[in-house]
């Protein structure tokens, strides 16, 4: 299990490749990547604030919980903070499991939880005006299925 919180960009291909190469016991590797999406009006940038210390602990807890719920051989979570331009990658998760159902479900679980249980706050800057992104009720509802 590896959890990384960083400001710098990450290389999706290199990370996915390195993660997959270590998994001789897994028949399934799932990766998910979140990208800064442009919005109506034109997004200048997205700024992501986080809570150093708690962020790493929360992500580690979420990944550990996934490992107890599904048959996983390994997990990877990378999440960036700071100022990101449209099209930049924000975060990725990877899961490795003997079979794909566990790998897919665990990846979805990781995504659902790190959306609303990891201390990150997004702010969009549109036409020079910053605006905090509101949490969605749907994100909270998504946790109930687990």
């Amino acid at each position, binding site marked *: 299990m590896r959890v990384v919180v960083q400001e710098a960009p990450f290389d999706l291909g290199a990370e996915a490749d390195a993660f997959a190469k270590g998994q001789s016991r897994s028949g399934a590797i799932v990766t998910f990547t979140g990208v800064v999406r442009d919005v109506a009006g034109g997004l200048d940038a997205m700024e992501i604030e986080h809570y150093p*210390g708690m962020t790493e602990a929360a992500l580690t807890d979420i990944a550990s919980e996934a490992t107890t719920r599904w048959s996983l051989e390994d997990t990877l979570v990378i*999440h960036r903070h700071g100022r990101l331009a449209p099209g930049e990658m924000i975060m990725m998760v990877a899961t490795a499991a003997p079979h794909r159902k566990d790998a897919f479900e665990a990846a979805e679980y990781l*995504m659902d939880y790190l*959306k609303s249980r990891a201390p990150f*706050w997004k702010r969009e800057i549109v036409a020079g005006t910053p605006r905090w992104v509101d949490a969605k009720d749907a994100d909270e509802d998504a946790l109930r299925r687990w």
Partner: protein
Amino acid sequence: MDVLYFAWVRERIGLPREVVQTDAATVMDLVEELRVREDRYAAAFADITALRVAVDQVLSDFDTPLDGVREVAFFPPMTGG
């Protein structure tokens, strides 16, 4: 104890962290103490249903006791991913 603020809570109060001398028994008691300090605190804590709290870096409820606690953080619902 150290009290931390993030996102728009930090902006409304105007600082990211401060040391608060308090005998508050619970998080809610601390909120009540902060609310009466100044308008900017009253504004930030006007609606606590819009806030979340972490006690010693663990997401917690507002009735959490503060005995022995070193760090309390207030922030809006999180928007990771």
